[in-house]
């Protein structure tokens, strides 16, 4: 198993596939504006936003073995940061991002400390319960729309550097954030921190016996993951011009897990691939029938049953140097 990224040949199938995938994403607005189908830009923006959230979830779920069923919470924190600040007249995007990341860090640190006191099933249940707690908090915020949510008249203002007021601008902003996050998570996974985290996933007791302050690393990973997901929430609010408690509903957390598993758990690019397939599947099914969930449900059961490596993971398995955690 190659431990260092340098051992991956630039011509190996996974590098080629990953580069092709990213190039394809970069070209979407160009192509779709040329053929006049602006719908594709919004569809792929949606993929990028949920892909970013799935990538953040994968950091703890895939590499840390911490099954968080409450990551929608941070989508909500990000979205409400934009919504509530805009409501009070603060439109500066950098402030939105700063508040979203700061709040996500605070909440993930506090809930993380409590959640890490347990493991396994209890961890799943507690993350779920905490996310639902904030969902009910959002519902009871009557001055910010309560159940109905809060509409955002104008997207976050990043002038004079760039603008995300038009859909293409928002797309490239989301694309840039996703690309940077993918690169950073690649570095993260291959750094000492990432290796330690993988170690806690495979044998927590041994890592503890070796003298590593395991709790500190797990909480740190959880906070990093929460912050990235908070940024995804900022993007989501700008994408829909809306902040709603529904973003924090537990089915959204479930969707994110499906994306990670579908694309390939503990791979860098997998969650993004999973998000793409899942969002497209949702779109196709919902165009086909109003009751598309009755088909999607059994499909998810099948995904759980057969795909233990995910779509992108299958590609890695075919790779001659195949190892599941060192994908670009």
């Amino acid at each position, binding site marked *: 198993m190659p431990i260092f990224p340098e051992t991956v040949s630039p011509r190996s199938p996974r590098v080629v596939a990953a580069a092709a995938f990213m190039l394809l994403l970069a070209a979407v607005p160009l192509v779709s504006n040329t053929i006049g189908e602006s719908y594709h830009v919004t569809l792929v923006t949606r993929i990028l936003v949920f892909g970013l959230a799935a990538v953040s979830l994968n950091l703890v*779920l895939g590499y840390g073995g911490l*099954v968080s*069923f409450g990551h929608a919470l941070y989508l909500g924190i990000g979205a409400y940061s934009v919504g509530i600040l805009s409501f009070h007249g603060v439109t500066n995007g950098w402030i939105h991002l700063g508040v979203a990341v700061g709040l996500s860090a605070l909440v993930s640190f506090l*809930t993380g400390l*409590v959640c890490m*006191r*347990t493991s*396994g*099933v*209890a961890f*799943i*249940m*507690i993350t*779920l*319960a*905490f996310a*639902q*707690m904030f969902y*009910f*908090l959002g*519902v*009871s*915020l*009557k*001055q910010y729309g309560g159940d109905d949510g809060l509409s955002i008249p104008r997207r976050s203002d990043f002038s004079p550097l760039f603008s995300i007021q038009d859909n293409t601008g928002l797309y490239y902003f989301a694309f840039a954030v996703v690309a940077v996050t993918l690169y950073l998570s690649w570095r993260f996974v291959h750094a000492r921190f990432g290796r330690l985290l993988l170690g806690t996933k495979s044998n927590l007791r041994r890592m503890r016996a070796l003298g590593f302050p395991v709790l500190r690393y797990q909480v740190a990973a959880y906070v990093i993951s929460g912050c990235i997901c908070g940024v995804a929430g900022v993007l989501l609010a700008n994408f829909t011009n809306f902040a709603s408690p529904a973003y924090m509903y*537990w*089915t959204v957390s*479930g969707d994110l*897990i*499906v994306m990670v*598993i579908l694309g390939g*758990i503990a791979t860098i690019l997998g969650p993004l691939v999973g998000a793409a397939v899942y969002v497209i599947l949702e779109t196709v099914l919902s165009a086909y029938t109003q*009751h*598309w*969930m*009755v088909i*999607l*449900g*059994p*499909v*998810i*059961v099948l*995904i*759980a*049953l057969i795909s*233990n490596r995910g779509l992108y993971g299958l590609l890695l398995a075919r790779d001659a140097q195949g190892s599941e955690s060192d994908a670009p």
Partner: protein
Amino acid sequence: MTWNLLVTQALNGLQYGVVLFLLAAGLTLVLGVMNFVNLAHGSFYMLGAYIAAAVFARTNSFLAAGAAAVLGTLVIGALVERTALRTFYARGHLDQVLATFGLILFFNELVRILWGASPVYMRPPDAFSGIVELLGFAYPSYRGLVIAVGLLVGAGLYLLIHHTRIGMLIRAGASNAQMVSVLGVNIRFVNTLLFGLGAAMAGLAGLMAGPIFSVQPGMGDNVLIAVIVVIVIGGIGSVRGAFYGALIVGVVDTVGRIYLPFVLRQVAERTVADAAGPALASMLIYLFMAVVLALRPQGLFPARR
């Protein structure tokens, strides 16, 4: 804020707690014995309520509705276990969560196809539609019935688990399933039976909750989260913990929603209290859970192994 209101709210809390217990007992048994996380447990609750409402509307007999709900969810639970979920016992929790998440989406949509998206009305049985006087307090008799049935089922479950042969097998399966199977017990059958029993108790809870809460798609989801809080507070795998946890959560949630805004008005300004009161009240059981976890990660009444 009269004494009378406090007693009524405490009884409402007890009644909610009893419904939570019916759900939590099945979930925690399946979790403790099969080590299986069944998020779709709330779907059985929903199906129980829908079956009961449909049968009650046709036959006008609450007993028939009850029998249909309990037997119906028992059969559906056993079928789902046999066809879809059994393979996941040997898998990790992540796959189990994913599979049962898919089942929830399926059942919610199935109910929406069969009965529509709008809530179905279900009235209490005629014999229990009035008010009962108890030591000078007036209380709706149907809610009293719910409390009585819940406590009876709780007592029955205790007898079943601790004083019958099948209960002995269930307890044995929880401590060492492989050994029980080697001793010639059909452990797979015991598992299916236990899963069906849990589903039937969820169906019973749905039946009892039908006339009190609204019967609608997704009604099992929110109650499932409350049940999860119950299990975490009580201790995973412990039926005793589920019982006390359910009563605590039921009473804290119900009484907190009524009294917290009043208490806040005493200490804060009215506008602040009105804004923060409902928000804090809805977060109360989760904050309580966080405190319990911080002090006792294994829960208040952990299972004795």
